[in-house]
């Protein structure tokens, strides 16, 4: 039986979908009677896949506290282990913030909280910073709350290029925290000639010593840019498949040996990897720790620009407090203070001028306060639909798993 096309209205669409799924579940449960009661009990426990949860009621006015989950080394810390800007925020607003470095990977964090999000439960965080594509997924599923821009007047300082992103037009649900580039880096001593494009990573001289990121959008983004695809614009299966073929060949030939997440840094240090697709912030940090051994560029044909964004999870009852926090960090002076500590790109306009007062050298670093030419080379990977995400991830993981 061919299913009828679904109505356009999202609400009706969802109801129809739910009804259909319920039908399927009843029929199959009867045929597979062996599983019986246990199956039913378990099915009742697991969250329904298709019902969007509703936002929790806000109690910010009575509850002056906030939990913020973020990545490691992603905020200013003083020698005593305190967070100066956060303490200033508490003094200013009376909101006590519990900051935890709970995110170490988009996927594992998502795996940890997704069932609670699906049920609309509190995940123990009122503000979370996750990467663009994951935010796109959370928005698609209705797992985050809509932000009230009236509570975030400083949002006017958001960099214009980040105001309308494909996964969240108008920034209704998410606000950038920090961003960075994915580009190319090389070991200056071992690769004296340097590297200017992705194509040069496939130089036989570097065989087995090339690394790429296990983050699909960054690695595939750079390869597609090299092929002349505008990754922010219109492209589809053909462009992606062509780039997959390039990567597959290089991995199978042994040109690319290392496909890693954060751990690629160890390989750069022990020189298993001499040239690689990497993240800008890491190289600034590695260079500071290892006497400037590497050079980083955003290739002429383009690199990717990604952001980690604040969102308020659906089950949080302290959205207003979270909005106050976001507003606070969009003050250029505060943003400059954070930028002076973390090595990523701040989305706050005016932070560069404020940073000039703290440390002029910092303010002139292209990787922290990029100018127009650098920014022109950086592109944001367009938002993917659910089906695309599934297919492209499967293709990319297939290479990583050697399947």
């Amino acid at each position: 039986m061919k299913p009828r096309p679904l109505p356009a209205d999202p609400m009706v669409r969802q109801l129809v979908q739910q009804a259909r799924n319920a039908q399927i579940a009843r029929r199959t449960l009867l045929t597979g009677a062996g599983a019986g009661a246990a199956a039913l009990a378990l099915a009742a426990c697991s969250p329904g896949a298709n019902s969007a949860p509703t936002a929790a009621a806000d109690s910010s006015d009575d509850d002056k506290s906030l939990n913020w989950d973020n990545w490691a080394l992603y905020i200013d810390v003083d020698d005593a282990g305190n967070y100066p800007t956060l303490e200033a925020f508490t003094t200013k607003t009376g909101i006590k913030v519990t900051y935890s470095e709970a995110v170490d990977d988009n996927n594992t964090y998502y795996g940890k909280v997704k069932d609670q999000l699906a049920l609309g439960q509190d995940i123990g965080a009122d503000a979370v910073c996750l990467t663009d594509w994951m935010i796109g997924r959370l928005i698609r599923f209705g797992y985050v709350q809509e932000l009230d821009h009236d509570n975030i007047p400083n949002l006017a300082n958001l960099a214009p290029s980040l105001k309308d992103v494909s996964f969240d037009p108008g920034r209704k649900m998410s606000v950038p925290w920090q961003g960075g580039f994915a580009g190319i880096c090389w070991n200056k001593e071992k690769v004296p000639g340097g590297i200017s494009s992705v194509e040069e990573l496939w130089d036989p001289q570097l065989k087995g010593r090339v690394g790429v990121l296990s983050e699909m959008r960054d690695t595939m983004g750079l390869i597609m840019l090299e092929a002349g695809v505008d990754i922010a614009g219109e492209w589809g299966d053909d462009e992606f498949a062509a780039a997959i073929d390039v990567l597959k060949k290089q991995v199978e030939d042994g040109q690319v040996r290392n496909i890693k997440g954060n751990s690629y840094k160890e390989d750069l240090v022990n020189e298993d990897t001499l040239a690689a697709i990497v993240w800008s912030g890491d190289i600034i940090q590695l260079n500071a720790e290892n006497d400037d051994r590497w050079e980083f560029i955003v290739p002429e044909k383009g690199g990717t620009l990604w952001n980690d964004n604040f969102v308020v999870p659906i089950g949080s009852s302290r959205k207003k407090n979270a909005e106050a926090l976001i507003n606070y960090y969009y003050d250029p002076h505060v943003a400059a203070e954070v930028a002076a500590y973390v090595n990523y790109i701040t989305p706050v306009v005016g932070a560069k001028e404020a940073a000039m007062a703290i440390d002029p050298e910092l303010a002139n670093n292209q990787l922290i306060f990029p100018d127009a030419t650098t920014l022109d080379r950086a592109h944001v990977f367009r938002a993917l639909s659910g089906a695309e995400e599934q297919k492209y991830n499967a293709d990319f993981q297939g290479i990583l798993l050697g399947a």
Partner: protein
Amino acid sequence: MAFAAFATTAAKSGEPAPRRRSRVALLLLLPGILYLVLFFLTPLVSLLLTSFQAPSEFGDVGEFNYAFRWENYTEVVGAYLPHILRSFGFAFVATVLALVISYPLAYFIGVSSRRWPLLQSVMLVLVIAPFFISFLLRTLAWKQLLSDESFVVTSLKAVSLLAPDAHLTGTPFAVIFGLTYNFIPFMTLPLYATLERLDLRYLEAGTDLYANPFHVFLKVTIPLSMPGIVAGTLLTFIPAAGDYINASRDFLGGPDSQMIGNVIEANFLVLLNYPIAAALSLILMAVILVVVSFYVKRAGTEELL
């Protein structure tokens, strides 16, 4: 065997009040049974149900419905057969290597150095010592030791044992090396436990009957230490087949040496393809169960389990 004899006498002496005892026993067993039902049986049933799910119609990433989709299993085997075979191959090689390395070691500690208890204790501590450091850290350390510019690799290249453009990390060699290294204590300890109780008079008797040392070893020592060998190989083979740390690309593996554990991890965490991951987990479990029961049957040590 000797143990079986003890077991029967113990059962006989405890016969007088069987009914009351069984009730107490049941009560004592209750926490264990509850624990197993809650933390073993429930997840297992859930895993089984998940493995038959189908992607939901018009669904997004990670959305599935129960549909008794048994094709998941055939698809999984079709797509990941090399990984399944590789996992068992790696685990087998690592188990054999661990046995070859551990047996002389355990023999030395348990038999040869019986006269020097201090030496015995020191050696045992040395075998256990690596457990004091997280095995993730130890595996990371090996990644550094085997890296391209390391002493090991440069020396091997200098004596031409390794081609100039060859490398160790990210190869099947490194993965098997890591597996062997990480599981040696699990092999050594059970072997030591049986060899330590080895009655040397049997060996003497063998020599008296004109067997040469090799034959004594083959016909007396090995059969007597069979319980340790079986326990050790099981403790090594089962976790090694499902291991995903050593073969992880972040540790010693590369794209061409990924094991079944890595495939399950990628499907669960990255692809959110839960049915595929669940089907793979169950296949892994089933194959291990079959292999192990066959092995135990052949080894003739059922009373161990």
